């Protein structure tokens, strides 16, 4: 009986998802980009970091001078642009999800503790949130990268340690709203421990909100990664990253604008997909709809 009902619930969620335009468009786009990231080695026609200085700055296919081998042309070092774009999806998605995971764990834990206990603990954590909000992310990232050296792992750690504020604020508010509910007192009366109450009872009550924050954060992080890579603080060359590609194409913006337009479009599409998908999911899973 459990399975049957669970299946019908799952089926109804699935039905709602398919009738929501945002989820359909965003989800399809997101699925395509994820597939590209996963299967990048199979899809790429060339090695993304192999240089061929004799074939520099070839234009994409719609241009007269284009070469069929390089569908989207080559960059200033003669590297295949399509392959670099496909591999770039890995960096963007990996950083986006990795950072959101790290910051989510930190932010949700702090927010739940602050909201549930209130009082002095809340004061300390709220102060930490304020402190964090007053830190300029780019400057702190700059300093951290200067100390730790630019690498994907450093980037994920630094951004993860910086971007937990939204999770903390949201989960703090949710925990505050729930801590005086009778079911919390009931849980004490049946001897439930603190971690259980926080993470297994309160947390599931705010999954819709968390989902929205996740989608906002992933989009935000992807943009931030691009910006930091553009500034030379993020991913180190020759790793293909969309932000880095824009940065490298900067010098040729006048005569070869696709060098910037292509990775720019990729970033734009990915952020759009994440936002559409997150918004749609919130509409479906919102407590009012259940």
């Amino acid at each position, binding site marked *: 009986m459990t399975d049957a009902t669970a299946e019908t619930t799952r089926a109804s969620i699935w039905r709602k998802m398919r009738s929501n335009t945002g989820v359909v468009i965003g989800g399809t786009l997101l699925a395509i980009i994820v597939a590209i990231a996963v299967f990048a080695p199979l899809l790429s026609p060339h090695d993304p970091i192999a240089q061929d200085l004799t074939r520099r700055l070839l234009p994409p296919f719609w241009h007269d001078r284009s070469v069929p081998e390089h569908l989207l042309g080559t960059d200033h070092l003669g590297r295949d642009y399509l392959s670099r774009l496909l591999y770039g999806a890995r960096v963007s998605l990996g950083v986006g999800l990795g950072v959101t995971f790290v910051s989510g764990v930190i932010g949700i834990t702090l927010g739940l503790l602050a909201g549930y206990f209130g009082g002095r603990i809340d004061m300390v954590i709220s102060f930490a949130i304020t402190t964090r909000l007053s830190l300029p992310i780019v400057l702190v990232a700059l300093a951290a990268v200067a100390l730790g050296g630019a690498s994907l792992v450093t980037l994920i750690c630094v951004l993860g340690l910086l971007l937990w504020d939204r999770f903390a604020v949201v989960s703090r508010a949710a925990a505050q709203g729930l801590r005086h509910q009778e079911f919390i007192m009931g849980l*004490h009366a049946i001897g439930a421990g603190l971690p259980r109450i926080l993470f297994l009872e309160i947390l599931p009550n705010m999954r819709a909100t968390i989902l929205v924050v996740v989608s906002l954060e992933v989009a935000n992080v992807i943009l931030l990664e691009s910006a930091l890579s553009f500034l030379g603080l993020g991913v180190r060359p020759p790793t293909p990253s969309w932000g880095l590609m824009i940065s490298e194409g900067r010098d040729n913006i006048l005569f070869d604008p696709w060098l910037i337009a292509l990775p720019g479009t990729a970033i734009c599409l990915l952020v759009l997909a994440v936002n559409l998908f997150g918004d749609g999911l919130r509409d479906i899973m919102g407590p009012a709809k259940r």
Partner: protein
Amino acid sequence: MSVPMIRLSNARKVYRLRRRMFAPTEELVALNNLSLDVAEGQTLGLVGESGCGKSTAVSVMLGLLRPDAGDVEIAGKKIGEMAVADRVRLIQPVFQNPNASLNPVKRIRSLIAQPLRLHGGEDEKRNVSHMMDLVGLPTRLADAHPAELSGGQRQRAAIARALILNPKVLICDEPTSALDVSVQAQIINLLLSLKKELGLTMVFVSHDLGVVEHLADRVAVMYLGEKIEEATTDTLFEAAQHPYTLALLAASLLPDPDIGLPKQTLGNAAADPFAVNKGCLFAPRCPIVQESCQHVAQSLRPVNDSLVRCDKA
């Protein structure tokens, strides 16, 4: 008499709080040396207006709040010294609002089974369906979320959850006040039959005197953290002694439209827990107040078959 199932002896709980920022802290005496005895199998009705300390008394009895002074004993053991697992198997609550007392994201089956999962290990599936039968909840609702149930069904689920570990004591904190009148009767009858069937000892907190009269064997009336009158239900409803109890009884609505609204005897002001005088706490609102009441603290004394905290009664 053997050891009472529930014994509060001089339980005292004081909250210190500021009414404004930077204001000096003030003391709010939520429980003022409250003593209660409930014999096994008996039901005690605990009545009083909002803010009189009923809910604090519930938390103290459940062992969720440690009294500042005095003892709480359940089945002869101090609740503060009891292991959590023992306490949980001995005493369980049913709360006022079944919308808030069941986690909205869980299914009824796991809500009812949760105490078992935390402490039991017995056959869960059989137990859950047995409990659902016992409280009159159709088993097809096992996989529903609380929001899909009616208020009465939710309260039945809450009762099933409270009873699944076979506790000896059930503390009901206004279990009917959030329900429709027709459903209230069903829940009360359910509690009565469960009490008989399982031999439960119950504390029934309410401000609905009609419900208390129906359910309780003894009634204790509280005012600003003090017990001001205690008697058997029959005695209290026929021959109440304390002026506050009389006013409470006069204020309850009777199911007869011709009678009209009851006459207020206490004025419109509510009890102020901060304006504590040296004498009788009820003096500011008492209809039979005398000069001496302002200065002389009242103590419980037996009048006929009741215990009354008033020397004028």
